[in-house]
């Protein structure tokens, strides 16, 4: 969390020390994977090896650059300077107004860059195994590289316009990858749904961008004091009042949050995320668990100064309160639905929605570091879980229903071990797993939140549910007897190696965010961090530890008691279904959200489409035909006038002229004597006149 003094420190540093070389070259991090994607797009379909090598090589290069950037920020931080280096340039100049783009290197973007490139690289490697039998292998890596480039563009953007462009590219690649198996109607529909639902949020986001630009006159976040996230612009925004007693800062913050909610699957725009599981599993892991859906959380972290603007010490703002409530509600809502799902990936999808709710609530209540820490740890263990699920699906020959699995720990020991680690991290098992530390940070922030304690209890309940549904899933999949019809087998090395690496991080990452050594929040907030083991002995923290232990014990215990090693037949109803059928049915049908949208939004749109169709056919079509008919009538009148009046007159006059010509030409008989005769008569007449006149 940046206070205003820290921001001023940041400006000073920026004016003192110009951007380093790595900041100048930061654009290479997204540009290289995008370039690779362009090259892969030109490759022929059989060039599989070239495609995957290009994609993996480009992302490895990005990872290297990201690590250099991270090291640069880290060294700056270690020497006590706040590193926030920007490289801005004018893209379009129209008169005196200009459109600026730029990128920023600060702790937030550095951490995000390392996470995205690292997890992305592991998933790319995993994909070479998972997609080995797909004939559109090159297309897959083309899209995947484009996604990586766009996502890294979102991360480094210092201009809200650049961020929005990459944001939309990310949405596009998400659409392309969900619909990767476009010949499946469900995949095509899911892709369309994801695209349209996120677009709803993006419209609000765009409105927010336009408003922000209109108010502050700059698109840049940080620009040596004149950026939109800096003190002078924020002060201006706080003085502007929008409708309903909101300040412009709050209204813009809420609009941007709507965009973030669309991308990050927050209620009520979460409906696309579970359906997005129609895409290949590496896509689910990379895009719909680790990175893209986290982009919304990252966006809120990026515009945090705006969200926080106007908060008094220890207080909160309207926009952060909204973020918290939406996040907490989503966390519980999605966790409830996850309890009653039977598709291995769908459970994880609802779990992702729920965890994104935690992140949002963490941002709302605890600040950037709390939310971002959960984002980073979640990215690792959720990618691990998805890739583990992919390994299970791969090993069971494309079976996704957990009721047709069981006993897989015997057949897939490595997958089981790593999946178990991921599951324990997601449940938040104390001390040893990263998920515990990050979730603990959120719960602690919730406990101290000044507005209400309800989000805290909601999040605790959500944590119990998380432990419950994950235990249910694991006991269905790995314990008991095998109930499927295939011959399960362990996955190839290219798939299990990334699992092992991610499992290591799912445990180890917790070490950077413990209360005793809060390195992560210190790094993001630019404070010194010191190891202080006494923090573990504080009663407040011990209370929290006990609460967490209780949460996990209750969740896992009940679930194990209900499901552990029972291996029910695939056709048998679930234990809970027998106990409370109506609630189970509601949860299984996802609390009827899709149906709700079906009878409200979609029904309204189809009604409106019918009205528009009727208007088009009857009213506008009628007007058009009337005009056409009037013109035809006019044309007919014209033709009548032409043939009967104009032509008649013309013909008649032609005839007259011709007759006159005939008469005149008969004078020219060609007989000289006739001419002479006339001449003589004329002379006689002339002479007569002359004589007559001289007489008179």
């Amino acid at each position: 969390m940046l206070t205003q003094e820290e921001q001023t420190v940041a400006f000073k540093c920026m004016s003192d020390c110009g951007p380093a070389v790595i900041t100048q070259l930061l654009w290479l991090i997204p540009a290289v994977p995008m370039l690779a994607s362009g090259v892969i797009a030109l490759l022929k379909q059989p060039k599989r090896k070239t495609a995957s090598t290009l994609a993996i090589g480009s992302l490895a290069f990005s990872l290297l650059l990201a690590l250099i950037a991270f090291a640069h920020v880290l060294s700056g931080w270690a020497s006590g300077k706040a590193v926030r280096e920007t490289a801005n340039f004018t893209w379009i100049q129209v008169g005196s107004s200009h459109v600026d783009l730029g990128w920023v290197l600060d702790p937030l973007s550095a951490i995000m860059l390392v996470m995205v490139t690292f997890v992305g690289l592991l998933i790319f490697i995993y994909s070479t195994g998972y997609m080995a039998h797909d004939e559109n292998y090159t297309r897959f890596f083309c899209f995947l590289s484009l996604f990586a480039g766009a996502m890294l563009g979102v991360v480094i953007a210092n201009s809200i316009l650049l961020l929005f462009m990459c944001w939309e590219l990310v949405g596009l690649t998400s659409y392309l990858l969900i619909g990767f198996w476009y010949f499946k109607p469900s995949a095509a529909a899911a892709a369309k749904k994801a695209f349209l639902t996120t677009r709803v949020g993006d419209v609000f986001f765009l409105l927010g961008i336009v408003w922000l630009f209109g108010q502050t006159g700059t698109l840049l976040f940080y620009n040596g004091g004149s950026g939109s996230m800096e003190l002078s612009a924020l002060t201006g925004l706080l003085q502007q009042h929008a409708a309903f007693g909101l300040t412009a800062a709050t209204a813009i913050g809420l609009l941007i949050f709507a965009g973030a909610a669309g991308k990050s699957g927050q209620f009520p725009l979460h409906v696309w995320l579970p359906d997005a599981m129609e895409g290949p599993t590496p896509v689910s892991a990379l895009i719909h668990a680790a990175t893209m859906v986290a982009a919304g959380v990252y966006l809120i972290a990026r515009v945090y100064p705006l969200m926080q603007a106007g908060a008094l010490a220890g207080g909160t703002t309207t926009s952060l309160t909204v973020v918290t409530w939406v996040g907490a509600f989503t966390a519980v809502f999605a966790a409830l639905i996850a309890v009653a799902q039977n598709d291995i990936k769908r459970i994880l999808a609802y779990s992702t929605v729920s965890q994104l709710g935690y992140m949002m609530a963490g941002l709302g209540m605890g600040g950037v570091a709390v939310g971002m820490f959960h984002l980073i740890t979640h990215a690792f263990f959720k990618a691990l879980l998805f890739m583990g699920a992919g390994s299970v699906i791969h090993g069971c020959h494309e079976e996704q229903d957990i009721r047709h699995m069981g006993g897989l720990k015997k057949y897939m020991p490595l997958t089981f071990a790593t999946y178990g680690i991921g599951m324990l991290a997601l449940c938040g098992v104390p001390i040893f797993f990263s998920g515990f530390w990050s979730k603990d940070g959120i719960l602690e922030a919730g406990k101290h939140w000044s507005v209400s304690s309800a989000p805290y209890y909601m999040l605790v309940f959500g944590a119990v549910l998380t432990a419950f549904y994950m235990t249910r899933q694991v006991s269905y999949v790995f314990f008991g007897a095998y109930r499927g019809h295939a011959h399960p087998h362990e996955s190839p090395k290219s798939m299990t190696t990334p699992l092992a690496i991610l499992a290591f991080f799912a445990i180890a990452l917790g070490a950077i965010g413990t209360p005793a050594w809060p390195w992560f929040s210190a790094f993001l907030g630019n404070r010194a961090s010191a190891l202080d083991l006494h923090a573990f002995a504080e009663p407040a923290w011990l209370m929290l530890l006990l609460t967490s232990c209780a949460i996990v014990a209750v969740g896992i215990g009940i679930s194990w008691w209900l499901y552990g090693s029972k291996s029910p037949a695939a056709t048998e109803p679930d234990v809970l279904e027998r106990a409370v059928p109506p609630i189970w049915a509601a949860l299984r049908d996802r609390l009827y959200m899709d149906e709700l949208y079906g009878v409200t939004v979609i029904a309204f749109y189809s009604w409106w489409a019918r009205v528009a169709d009727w208007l088009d056919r009857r009213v506008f079509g009628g007007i058009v035909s009337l005009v056409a008919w009037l013109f035809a009538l006019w044309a007919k009148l014209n033709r009548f006038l032409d043939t009967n009046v104009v032509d008649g007159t013309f013909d008649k006059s032609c005839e007259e002229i011709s007759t006159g010509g005939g008469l005149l030409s008969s004078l020219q008989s060609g007989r000289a004597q006739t001419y002479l005769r006339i001449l003589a008569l004329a002379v006689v007449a002339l002479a007569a006149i002359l004589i007559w006149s001289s007489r008179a």
Partner: protein
Amino acid sequence: MTPLTGYLLIAALLFAIGLAGALTRRNAILVLIGIELMLNAANLNLIAFWRYSPHPEALTGMMFAIFSIAVAAAEAAVGLGLVIQIHRHAHTTDLDQMNRMKG
């Protein structure tokens, strides 16, 4: 009636006879002869006006008449030449049939 009036009347009569011949005759040669008559009527006028003018010693009328007779002779020669050519070409001297100049 002065002697001049007599001359003028004869000249007018001659002119009228010539004109009538030129207008009524079909034969090109006879038309030519009519034109010669009109020319000579004019010559007669010239001589008469000179003889009874205030300065008869100036010989102007005589000169006009001689020129006119010379021109008339040349004209008659050209005219007869044309008529002979037309006759050779069209085997007729009938003017009514020579209407190919008609527009």
